[in-house]
């Protein structure tokens, strides 16, 4: 199954492992990789979504009518798991409104619309952190991470997870290997291929920077063997940068989905990222080649992420090729640049044929995560027809890269048996589509899994909300009861003190109180009696004065003064907060609204700790999931709620302020 096999690749003798299953697909890369990268024409309008990444949407910093310059910040991150957005060209902001974005839901999302002035004038960019990649050693890794964050760099393989977070695995997670993902296993897509061919030195620069940031010893760039030119270009760049001892190109057999993060790590290192875990747990950080080049751009040239390579391909487009596209350019401008559609178009897909999602229109902007616009003809993507009954042939299990039993998942998902479907490890499914691809009954398996995942999350969330409500109710009851008890006790003490003042001192000693309280009481009573004896004319007012301190003393002794009591309530609420925090942002927010002073301080922190790792865990699912995750049900972000890896307490600790944004992010994502 996953036995090791050593394959000699051209460059070295790196031992390669393999993962279970996978499918050989016609790669169709020749359609678009024969021409060099072209610069996309500068469109008259740019539509730049505020949320192009996993995490909280960026907060807009410009207003309609503002003039912006190329590279100028137009939206800032909100919280740790978030990313800023920059203007991709100079011009005027003409609208800030929801526009259709490339998302499987087909819904709109807030975008900044910029009317370009055609001058493409740069804003003043931050100074490079280093002139040359070899000087990066002198930079504090935290500074580099901040630069990566400020430059709006997110995973460009499709997941769009903020890269600075991935570059911050934490001190207790020593990173051994940096894995660079140049596999590009999806058919048709060639933007990484072209990037490696034409900008190999940028990639190597980025690798050197990231090696420094995560303090890893070695970097391996995984490239599928259907891209020999790319591998050669990388080798040449490594040679000319003289980093052959630390950076290596590994040519891996072409097999879908080798470019899945977990699969690539397995192939290159033999390590398995634990279920629900992140690569850092096995000492690995994985980044896409595009991200790597963007890091070099940001660190060495101060340039934010405002453009990316996009493959425009498929047989329904006249001249397939790769473009360097400003973020926010509409898909239709690229299609037009490629000579428009040719013949009958069956589907327009964002991403590849295996994990991409269907676009309703080409009038959607290119985002940081858009790697391909794929116009498929009916021949390329025929209607699979109605699904036939499953004949239990097991081909799905044969090809599943996660070694799941897709057929069992299907039966249980169909029956809505959410417990059973999780017993069969539904959440290890990366939605790569291999099973559906080979299914002779043409069952839309991935659709069933997404459905079951969404249902599970919804149920989980409901359950959490119910638990939370119950706990809050219980806490409130307890608090009221305690207050009542307190009030009564105080009253009683008062009465007793009054009575004690009137009666003999012995009676006071008998009062039903804690030992400490009794002692204090006794002393006070003795004193009062003595005073009474001395003066012989004790007034009621005087006795009361003596009783007052007595009362609060007693309360302090029992640990429940009215003031402290609120704190007690907070503590009682706390576990609930941390439990609910990661998924039920909405409730969290509500709760904050309702119990503002209580929750503000203490409740939010644990929830942040619970959440960040989850979010990171989701990033672990990256590549293959990525597109799928973009796919509609936001599985990645939500997977967060399910994953409970304590791996990334570090980021949370570093940015305790981020937590409430996280809660908000969750809310946003869930809606």
């Amino acid at each position, binding site marked *: *199954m996953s036995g090791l096999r050593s394959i000699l690749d051209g460059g070295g003798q790196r031992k390669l492992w393999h*993962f279970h299953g996978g499918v050989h697909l016609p790669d169709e890369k020749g359609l678009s990789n024969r021409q060099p990268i072209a610069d996309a024409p500068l469109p008259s309008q740019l539509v730049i979504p505020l949320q192009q990444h996993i995490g909280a949407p960026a907060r807009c910093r410009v207003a309609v009518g503002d003039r912006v310059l190329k590279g100028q910040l137009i939206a800032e991150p909100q919280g740790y798991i978030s990313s800023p957005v920059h203007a991709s060209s100079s011009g005027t902001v003409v609208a800030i409104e929801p526009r259709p974005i490339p998302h499987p839901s087909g819904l709109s999302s807030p975008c900044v619309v910029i009317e370009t002035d055609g001058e493409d004038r740069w804003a003043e960019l931050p100074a490079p952190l280093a002139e040359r990649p070899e000087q990066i050693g002198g930079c504090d890794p935290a500074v580099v991470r901040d630069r990566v964050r400020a430059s709006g760099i997110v995973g460009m393989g499709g997941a769009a997870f903020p890269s600075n977070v991935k570059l911050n695995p934490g001190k207790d997670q020593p990173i051994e290997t940096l894995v660079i993902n140049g596999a590009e296993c999806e*058919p048709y897509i060639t933007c990484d291929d072209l990037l490696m061919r034409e900008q190999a030195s940028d990639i190597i620069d980025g690798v050197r920077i990231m090696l420094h940031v995560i303090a890893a010893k070695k970097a391996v760039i995984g490239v599928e063997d259907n891209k020999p030119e790319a591998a050669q270009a990388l080798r040449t760049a490594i040679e000319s940068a003289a980093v052959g001892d630390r950076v290596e190109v590994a040519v891996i057999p072409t097999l879908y989905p080798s470019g899945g993060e*977990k699969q690539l790590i397995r192939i290159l290192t033999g390590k*398995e*990222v*634990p*279920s*629900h*875990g992140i690569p850092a747990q096995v000492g690995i950080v994985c980044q896409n080649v595009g991200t790597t080049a963007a890091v070099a751009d940001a660190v060495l040239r101060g340039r934010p992420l405002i453009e990316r390579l996009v493959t425009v391909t498929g047989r329904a487009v006249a001249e397939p090729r790769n473009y360097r596209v400003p973020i926010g350019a509409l898909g239709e401008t690229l299609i037009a640049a490629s000579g428009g559609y040719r013949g009958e178009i069956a*589907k327009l*897909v964002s*991403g590849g*044929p*295996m*994990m*991409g*999602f*269907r676009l309703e229109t080409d009038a959607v902007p290119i985002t940081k995560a858009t790697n391909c616009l*794929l116009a*498929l003809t009916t*021949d390329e*993507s*025929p209607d*699979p027809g*109605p*699904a*036939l*009954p499953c*004949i*239990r*042939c*097991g*081909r799905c*299990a044969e090809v599943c*890269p*996660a*070694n799941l*039993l897709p*057929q*069992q998942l299907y039966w249980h998902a169909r029956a809505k048996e959410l417990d*059973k479907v999780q*017993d*069969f*490890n539904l959440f*290890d499914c990366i939605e790569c*589509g291999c099973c*559906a*691809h*080979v*299914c*002779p*009954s*043409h069952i*839309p398996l*991935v*659709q069933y899994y997404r459905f079951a995942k969404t249902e599970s999350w919804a149920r989980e969330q409901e359950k959490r909300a119910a638990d939370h409500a119950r706990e809050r109710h219980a806490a409130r009851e307890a608090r009221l009861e305690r207050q009542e008890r307190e009030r009564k006790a105080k009253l009683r003490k008062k009465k007793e003190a009054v009575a004690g003042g009137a009666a003999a001192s012995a009676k006071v000693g008998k009062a039903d109180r804690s030992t400490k309280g009794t002692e204090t009481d006794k002393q006070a009573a003795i004193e009062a009696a003595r005073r009474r004896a001395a003066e012989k004319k004790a007034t009621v007012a005087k006795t009361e004065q003596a009783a007052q301190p007595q009362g609060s003393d007693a309360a302090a002794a029992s640990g429940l003064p009215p003031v402290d009591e609120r704190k007690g309530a907070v503590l009682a609420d706390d576990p609930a907060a941390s439990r609910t925090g990661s998924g039920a942002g909405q409730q969290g927010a509500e709760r904050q609204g309702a119990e503002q002073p209580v929750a503000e301080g203490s409740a939010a922190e644990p929830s942040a700790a619970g959440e960040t790792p989850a979010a990171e865990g989701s990033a672990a699912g990256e590549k293959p999931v990525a*597109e*799928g995750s973009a*796919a509609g049900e936001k599985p990645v972000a939500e997977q967060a709620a399910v994953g409970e890896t304590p791996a990334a307490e570090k980021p949370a600790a570093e940015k305790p302020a981020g937590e409430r944004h996280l809660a908000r992010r969750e809310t946003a994502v869930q809606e």
Partner: protein
Amino acid sequence: MTMTIISSPHSARVNRVDQVMVQVCLALIPGTAALVWFFGWGVLINMALATVFAVTAEALVMKLRGRPALPAISDYSAVVTALLFALTIPPTLPWWMTLLGILFAIVIVKQLYGGIGYNPFNPAMAGYVFLLISYPVATTSWLPPDVSELLEARDLSTLSFVDSVRLIFTGALPEGLTWDAVSAATPLDELRTMLDQGKTIDMIRESPLWGLFGGRGWEWVGASFLLGGLYLLWRRVITWHIPVAFLGGLLAVAAAFWLVDPQGYPFPTFHLFSGGAILGAFFIATDPVSACTTRRGQLIYAALIGVTVFVIRTWGGYPDAVAFAVLLLNIAVPMIDQYSQPRVFGHGRGERKKA
């Protein structure tokens, strides 16, 4: 069941149920040819009859169930069931028995459980066993293989096509022939009888029914089915797991007993090349619907079929056992599947599943 596919993947699907079934039919050609060669036209007549019956029955049941009949019959699964059934029955079986067997297979075993994909038992084998139990004599009366020496020895001539048709539809034998003269024991049957009479293997091998490593004629039939099975492997319609485990299990037990007592037990290859072992290993136990779905499960399932075949052949009440063994193990499939699940990527090796 019909659900528009809005999700990825958008690729052209590479497999189709009907294509899989057609591949299986194609793979049956060499074995069928060998059977026709040795046992006459009856084989083909049975196949045609069974196919017509099966497809008609399937269509009628689908109508009764209020579902479209065309998609059900155009997946060719009924055809495969019919062909496999027809290959296991004697070439002279009366037509109405074929009809009964097919009705049992298609209507009761397959459709009453919900149609393709839902039947726990292999329909062809269930139909055959139904006949075997109901009409034991008719279903075990095979013709002798058409090998010239054999025929000369018994002074027989083969049945012509017309003779076969008449025999199947009217039960009338060509003039001057009796059932005793036409039929012959199968090698497995002969072996049992002889062993029961206390003869040693060496004595039994004197019989003209014996060939090089199995029953005369039968060994060629087996080899032809093997050819078809290899074709299925090559086309990736099946994987090696079930056939190898089946034949491996059978060979291993047979070899063990033969090593202990070579005169009391036949040479292991005899088991492979007599009766339905090869057909069973490549075409019947591999029926995806009724077999295990996990890899390890398939190995266990098929190996146990092989062992059960040997056990029934050696000590059971019937000369051949593939059908019984397959059905017995069919019912064990859910349990085997449950306990043979693979380790999921990213889960520790020792980790136990909750399920």
